[in-house]
């Protein structure tokens, strides 16, 4: 037991979890089929499932996991990150493309993309919120995530660098979490207009 506590975390992990890739492939094929079939239920399913999970994960990571992670020691953060971040690397882009692709089709189906439609303003607002989130997530959060994983792979990781990058990850996760509140407001407005 004492040995387990003292031993450094194993560096033998995959940055991109290859076992998850077939699942991603299946989801993407199903998404293409749903769009091609033009069936409202299938499109709505992908948008609601993808969007619900995307929002929930962002809120959970931004406001629950993030603050806890920020208070852990660097070795504990490293151990957690080695298991957590590779999964996020595969999960988040899949949820985002599910939500956006199906969401656009849904808006087209319901005619929300027409500027004459009363929902149009809210749809544009959602595009702007997603755009800002994309700049933050792809510009800052995701590169920090990948850089941490590469640093953790080294025999002697740079703790200072990991701490700096993790801080960046945690702050941006908090910002995207907060922006998801705006998404919730917009989506519930669209659904009830």
């Amino acid at each position, binding site marked *: 037991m004492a040995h387990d506590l003292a031993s450094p975390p194993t560096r033998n992990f995959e940055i991109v979890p290859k076992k998850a890739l077939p699942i991603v492939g299946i989801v993407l094929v199903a998404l293409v089929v749903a*769009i091609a079939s033009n069936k409202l239920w299938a499109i709505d399913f992908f948008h609601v499932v993808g969007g619900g999970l995307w929002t929930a994960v962002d809120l959970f990571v931004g406001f629950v996991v993030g603050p806890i992670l920020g208070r852990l020691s660097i070795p504990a953060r490293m151990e957690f990150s080695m298991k957590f971040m590779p999964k996020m690397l595969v999960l988040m882009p899949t949820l985002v493309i599910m939500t956006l692709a199906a969401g656009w089709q849904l808006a087209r189906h319901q005619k929300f*993309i027409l500027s004459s439609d009363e929902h149009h303003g809210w749809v544009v607002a959602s595009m*702007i919120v997603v755009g800002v989130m994309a700049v933050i997530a792809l*510009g800052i959060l995701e590169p920090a995530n990948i*850089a941490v994983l590469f640093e953790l792979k080294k025999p002697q990781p740079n703790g200072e660098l990991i701490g700096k990058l993790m801080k960046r990850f945690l702050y941006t996760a908090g910002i995207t979490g907060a922006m998801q509140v705006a998404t919730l407001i917009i989506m519930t407005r669209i659904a009830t207009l």
Partner: protein
Amino acid sequence: MSANTHELGQHAPARKFPPIGEISVAVLALVIIGGIYVASHLPNPVSLTPAVISTLLATILVLVNVALLSHLEEFAWKVFFQVAKWSLIAYGIIAGMLEYIFIFDKVRGSALLLFSSILLVFAINIPIHFGFSVARHQEP
């Protein structure tokens, strides 16, 4: 240095690099602004000029980034290409999905050409950004 970081070993101070990361983020913002502008006006006919300007600016900035990268000496190119390759696969698929949707929705002509250009710049910029952001922290 704290006890925790000390245990992880001593490391050389961070190197100074040209603003490749900052330029990539600007490219990202430009393509997203252009994309939202066109998407928010579809299917109505609209002046594409603002989106064309933002896409041209983004393209120029990507070329600037490529030039800056090509002048880097002692850089972790192996890691750069490793990250860029995976990012290109992932974000190429995402861009391809979006392209498929616009074609499926019968977006044609100059609007489709503009969307395709935006997606192409996006799919090229992300691998550069991710590759550089990771490789800058690696030993050459």
